[in-house]
């Protein structure tokens, strides 16, 4: 009787088989998920690295272009070029008799050139590289799930 009851409540063999397969596959699936996550994050990190490299080359090119255009501007506004243009436009040097001086209250004359701000003005940008880009997956997991702190970004750098 007891044997019959036991048999009546026993799982079907195919179900037990699926359960055991499922249980043995569970860690495999978990590992696959972790690996996938790691791959995704790694791919993103690699893409960010390449982007940094590209931006670096782009920055170099922009700086070269700026320097080049500054020089080109200087060429077309050089003394000899400006002389030619003034002559072409009909300007001539004013004779002494045509020069008149007047007093302008408060006018101090032409200001000294200021190509860059003087020292003391804080305008230097800090690093534009986001701290998140420096974080590894392990440090992100640690900081997000295990360390209950809002400021704990353990950068690898």
């Amino acid at each position, binding site marked *: 009787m007891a044997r019959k009851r036991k048999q009546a409540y026993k799982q079907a*063999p*195919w179900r037990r*088989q699926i359960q055991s397969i499922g249980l043995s596959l569970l860690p495999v699936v978990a590992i696959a998920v972790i690996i996938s996550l790691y791959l995704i994050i*790694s791919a993103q*990190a*690699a*893409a*960010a*690295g*390449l982007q*940094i*490299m590209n931006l*670096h080359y782009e920055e170099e*090119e922009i*700086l*070269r*272009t700026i*320097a*080049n255009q*500054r*020089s*080109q*501007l*200087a*060429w077309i*506004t*050089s*003394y*000899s070029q400006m002389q030619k243009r003034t002559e072409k436009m009909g300007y001539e*040097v*004013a004779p*002494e008799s045509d*020069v008149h*001086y*007047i*007093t302008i*209250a408060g006018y101090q*004359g*032409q200001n*000294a*050139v*200021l*190509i*860059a*701000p*003087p*020292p003391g*003005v804080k*305008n*230097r940008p800090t*690093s534009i*590289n986001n701290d998140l*880009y*420096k974080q590894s997956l392990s440090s992100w997991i640690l900081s997000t799930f295990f360390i209950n702190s809002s400021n704990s970004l353990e950068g690898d*750098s």
Partner: protein
Amino acid sequence: MKKSNGLRLNLIGISLSLASILIILQMVRIQNSTKHQELSEWADEEYSYAVENYYPERGNIYDRWGRLLAGNEDVYEVGVMLEYVTNPSTIAQTLDGINQLNYKEIFSAASKSYDPEKSVYAVLTDFLPSGVIDTLSQIKQDFEIENPYGKKENLPSLRGVVWNPHLKRSYPENSLASNILGFYSYMDRENGIGYYGIEEYYDDLLTGMPIETFMPRNPYLLEELPDVPAGASLVLTIDREIQAMVEKKLDDAVEEHEAESGTVIVMDPRNGEILAMASQPRVNLNQYWKYEDEFEDKTPFNRAISETYEPGSVFKVLTMSAAFDNGTVDEETIFNDPGRFEYGGSVIYNWNRRGWGKQTMQGCMQHSLNVCLAWVATEMGNNDFYEYLQAFGIGRRSNIDLGGEEIWPLSAPGDSNWYPIQLATNSFGQGVAVTPMQLAAAVSAVANEGKLMKPHVLKAIIQDGKQYDTSPQVLSVPIKPKTARTMNLMLMESLKEESSLATVPGYSIAGKTGTAEIPVEGVYGTELTNASFVGWGPVNDPQFLVYVWIEKPGSSPWGSVVAAPVFSSITQDLVKFLDIPPDDNIQNLTAKST
């Protein structure tokens, strides 16, 4: 389920597990093997990082109003990647004639066989402007469309031709202010340095700090790339417009008077700022390698700071200032000029070899009497006279911030090369040698209430995005302010009295001419002279000092004829550039404003 099925499944499970364990064991073994360590290290060394050199952009040089005098331009190096070259003939034909390249040279370079160890890349030419590269790029693309990958040998192809951009030094004003700027030897990309002038003196600042860094090839390892700050940029005290005006007037004067050369310095005596400094010859700095053609036989690059000479009568300004300052003479002192002065076994004569009778000190300066000045110096005595000269900076570098400054040491009592007669001859600028810069700086003390300011051409430095302005420095105070004012009035009156060609209508100018005989093999009395004039104004508030030196003029030997008119002409334009109204205008404007 049959028993045999279960057994089979178990066997498969065990086999797979064993296989997995074996794989893992093998992985661990490989990971920990010494060979792996070696291979890993080798791969790291060879492929993980590349050594990259970052050369910062050379700093710019601006004039006092921010106009670019020296900058950088984008240019390209063109070369061939030998591995990819398919048609050297097309490369040679396309580049033939560019940058003086010829077919044979290019063909030979492009035909080299590829060797991964020794021969990978060959430079064809460098410093090509972007316009040429645009054309080259277009041609390369067209060929590539017709003959993809250059596979057809009978069709043209520029495969393998590559170009890399870089910056080169550029001087948009060509030869303008070349004597001040100097040049940077940009053709030598690895070891280029600054020569002469600003480029030499401030070479370290302009160059910045080149960085050699390991650049990871693995993007995972890439973090922040090194920030290479550009070299510092410099703002000069030079005014481009004044410089151009002065250079033109100097060139005209040298040509008109058939002189060998000339130099003009324009400075602000109140702070020592050099507004313009012109000298001959000059060179187009964009073709600096030709400078040896222009500067033959050790000709100085900038005569204003590198050529010493006997200044002649302009030196009398210093002698008379010293005598007034120590009380040897005053406005009432009368000197009876007999036309000759015997001292130290030699005889001093005036320029016209005759006596001028009773003269005040103003008369002595107005007529430029050597005999009078020699008497004044001997009355002062050796110690006082040479102490004053040293206080005026004679015999020492002016310490102007330009590369290549020269000096001639001042011989003083006690020196082996000093003789008693030198006290007399030095008083009128003979037997003593200075550079134009030294003399202009010394005389500027007389114009500036007795304060000798350090002459300089640097107004500000721009580094790390900040502009640092320089401050004027007082080098010494050789004479009292009262003496300086007395000298100003005396030299203004003497110019008026002699109706000098140096005067400027409407402006009060003080100044002194100079005509110095040039000794040939130690003998004076030839026709060769140094004609000069130093003047400043307006006398009530001196804002400029102009020194003109015309070397060996052919039309006339006299400074009053050759150099004085150049001073007047320059000053007439200078007052307009500096917005200095005529004296009567100042009085009217002051009256209106009060």
